């Protein structure tokens, strides 16, 4: 540009650069335009874009596993999934404390449901285990209370654990609670752990902090007088197993040190229980490596599992693999949805084109009256129209009755027009027909009749004139109508649901099922995302082949 090389930027009359001056002049206009669209923009963003985005995010989001079992998933990372043996004791120990917390907060069933999508049976495994987890802790609690009766009392515990400097541990445990049950655990717990006891009994301190936070903030009780839950006793038992801890306890001078020393003196009375055995006792399945494989595969915060599911694949230890034949459903449904949408679009073109042509070539008055007939279905509820088709199409319905009465069909072999693909195609073609006729009509309206006259005056027969001159000019209308009908059809739900039976349902019916019945929102989101991607891809293809400029809705 010459103005930058030779004379510098172009200047306005007052000496400011022209661009700045222009931008300033346009800013007010832009702001006003923005203000005008702001209400609608806000409405769309809040009610449409944000919910859709969050819904789509669900298709990859998988934080529930690591949020509910933060310690177990971390411990499980080093486990070799292909080893065919269950993980070691450290994992089971972490699982115990995680699951205990989850069971108290009633979160373990949600996790079970989530993992059940990937491996059947997980749901009941988590439910029954969570219910019986208390018994594991009691294995420690009973002997500890026998040896040191003072530890039966919540006040003893509170005095023993309290001190100064332990805020960091409390906060880190609070963060874990917040992950599991978002945002529930703010406020004062009424407890400050002592640094000495944290150093002396790390597991016990963590378990006590967990309990104190839950007791104070979820149940609203005063932790200084309440008895801690069983997991705290189990943690104490575990802490005391270490020789170094025993020595340290014997040297400890803090509150209730003598009670602890009672325990170290009677270590032989504490159970020699492993959590692995305890869990195996609760449910044999905990020793099944497949359960652990599933947990390990789904422990990252984001997963491609839902998407793999949506295309009939699953995540195995060696990566993605096809599902067994009898579990494949979605690919077939996608193909059927696409194919039936195409058939519906084609029938709409075949039925709609002549109607649009007649409408466009009639005098305005007559055309307007007939247009009302085209628009009439819009004023009737979709549900009513589809139900009407049910009446018409069923085997004892109007159409079959007429055909039998006319003798075209034998009474014993009435046509099956409903609860299959035929029903869906018939009803949806009828319902989507206006969306084909309207753009076709508005495009045809703009084609002057002189073109046909000109073609005929040049020697073309009626058919040639139509095919060579009129039809090519109406193609933009066909394009617009087809895109409209196809995209509407591909996401249709109500009509296939009512008249589609099993052979005539679309992928959208499956999405609805996962949203409202199976509550597998992640899979529903993945299916929806794929559907959206397919539509965008087809739109892009259409643009490449036909050109979106050639799509006219009128004018």
């Amino acid at each position, binding site marked *: 540009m010459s103005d930058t090389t030779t004379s510098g930027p172009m200047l306005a009359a007052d000496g400011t650069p022209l661009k700045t001056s222009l931008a300033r002049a346009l800013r007010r206009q832009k702001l006003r335009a923005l203000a005008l669209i702001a209400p609608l923009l806000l409405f769309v963003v809040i009610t449409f874009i944000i919910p859709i985005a969050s819904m789509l995010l669900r298709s990859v989001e998988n934080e529930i596993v690591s949020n509910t079992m933060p310690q177990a998933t971390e411990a499980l990372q080093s486990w070799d999934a292909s080893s065919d043996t269950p993980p070691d004791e450290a994992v089971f120990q972490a699982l115990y404390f995680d699951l205990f917390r989850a069971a108290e907060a009633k979160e373990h069933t949600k996790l079970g449901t989530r993992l059940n999508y990937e491996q059947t049976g997980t749901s009941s495994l988590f439910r029954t285990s969570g219910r019986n987890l208390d018994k594991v802790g009691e294995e420690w609690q009973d002997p500890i209370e026998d040896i040191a009766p003072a530890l039966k009392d919540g006040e003893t515990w509170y005095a023993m654990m309290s001190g100064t400097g332990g805020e960091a541990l409390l906060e880190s445990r609070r963060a874990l609670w917040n992950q599991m049950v978002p945002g529930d655990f703010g406020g004062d717990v009424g407890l400050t752990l002592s640094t000495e006891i944290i150093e002396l009994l790390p597991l016990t301190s963590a378990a006590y902090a967990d309990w104190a936070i839950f007791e104070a903030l979820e149940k609203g009780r005063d932790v200084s007088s309440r008895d801690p839950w069983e997991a705290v006793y189990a943690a104490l038992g575990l802490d005391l197993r270490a020789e170094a801890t025993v020595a340290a306890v014997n040297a400890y001078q803090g509150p209730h040190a003598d009670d602890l020393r009672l325990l170290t003196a009677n270590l032989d009375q504490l159970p020699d229980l492993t959590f692995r055995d305890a869990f195996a006792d609760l449910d044999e399945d905990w020793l099944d490596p497949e359960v652990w494989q599933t947990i390990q595969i789904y422990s990252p915060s984001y997963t491609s599992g839902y998407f793999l599911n949506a295309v009939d694949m699953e995540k195995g230890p060696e990566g993605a693999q096809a599902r067994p034949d009898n579990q494949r459903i979605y690919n077939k449904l996608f193909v059927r949805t696409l194919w039936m949408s195409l058939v519906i679009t084609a029938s709409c073109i075949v039925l709609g084109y002549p109607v649009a042509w007649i409408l466009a070539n009639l005098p305005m008055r007559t055309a307007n009256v007939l247009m009302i007939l085209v628009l009439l279905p819009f004023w009737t509820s979709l549900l009513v129209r589809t139900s009407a088709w049910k009446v018409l199409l069923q085997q004892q319905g109007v159409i079959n009755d007429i055909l039998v009465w006319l003798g075209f069909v034998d009474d014993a072999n009435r046509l099956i027009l409903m609860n299959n693909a035929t029903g869906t195609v018939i009803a949806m073609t009828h319902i989507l027909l206006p969306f084909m006729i309207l753009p076709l009509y508005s495009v045809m309206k703009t084609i002057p009749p002189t073109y046909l006259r000109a*073609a005929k005056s*040049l*020697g073309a027969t009626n058919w040639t004139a139509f095919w060579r001159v009129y039809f090519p000019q109406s193609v933009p209308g066909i394009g617009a109508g087809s895109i409209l009908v196809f995209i509407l059809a591909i996401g249709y739900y109500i009509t296939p649901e009512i008249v589609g039976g099993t052979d005539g349902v679309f992928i959208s019916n499956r999405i609805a099922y996962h949203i409202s019945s199976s509550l597998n929102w992640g899979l529903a989101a993945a299916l929806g995302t794929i559907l959206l991607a397919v539509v965008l891809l087809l739109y892009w293809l259409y643009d490449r082949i036909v050109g979106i400029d050639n799509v006219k809705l009128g004018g």
Partner: protein
Amino acid sequence: MLDASVDQSFVKFDRVQKSYDGENLVVKDLNLSMPKGEFLTMLGPSGSGKTTCLMMLAGFETATHGEILLDGNPINNIPPHKRGIGMVFQNYALFPHMTVAENLAFPLEVRKMDKATREEKVKRALDMVQMGAFGGRRPAQLSGGQQQRIALARALVFEPELVLMDEPLGALDKQLREHMQFEITRLAHDLGITTVYVTHDQTEALTMSDRVAVFEDGRIQQLAPPDTLYEEPENSFVAQFIGENNTLEGVVTKINGPDLCEVKLDGGELIDAKPVNVSNVGDRTRVSIRPERVEMNQERLQDGAHTLKAEVLEFIYMGDIFRTRLRVAGNEEFVVKTRNAPDQARLKPGTHVDIGWLPQDCRALDA
């Protein structure tokens, strides 16, 4: 031009009537004969039935009564695509989805000509309208004048013997229109094509045609070559419609043979005029005089000229001519056109002058 006597009625309308609603006749009793090679213009105000006639000839409308003959054969029942008549439409009707060359090849293609012939004919037609370089363009990429040429070339490319044009120059600006008028006439005469041209622009009609048919109220008011039409209009409508005209109203008082009568104007003045369609003493009449046939310079008045007193109301300088508006015998819209000559006086409003004209330029028409 072909010898006109060979085929005096190449196109013939025989007592043709047309009604759209069964109540009103749009075309009332049309009779018209056209020799081969003639350039005939149908001229008239809108709603006069001229376009309907063209559409009946093209086959897009059917005559309610009467017959249309082309080259001696009745064509009422022949569909438009079999008539072999070229047509240029008002808005050109070039097919927007085809290139210029494809547009031109279309009539040849539907006539099943082979590719080589097609290409050659298209090229020749494009060269004919000086558009040889534009074959690959789309109509939308051309200017109005260029589209007009292409439309013309398309109507001519399949060598029809009859070409119809429906106000083809209506959408062009004045300069281009004048240029195209000349070009269309040249092409039509060079190729010896019989042309029916519809327009409401009288200048176009006068400059282009061999004969002009003036339409009004579903009838041909006068069918004549341009000069006859202008100089010898047969009734008041034609006199008013073609060119500028001064009208004085009065009553016939005396008829002195076929070429002279006496008219007493409503203002009381007596003038001589040529009786055209007045036959009886006592008939009311409109006397018509062309503005350029009125003389204001007494010295130039020829023998036998008739003089009247007039008062100048307005003087307009128009370059090549002066236009003077006068009050003559009570008519305040009496216009005189004089050539801008050195000795021509430029009259001031309010001046009283004597004006005069020859009785044969003064035509007594129907009232």
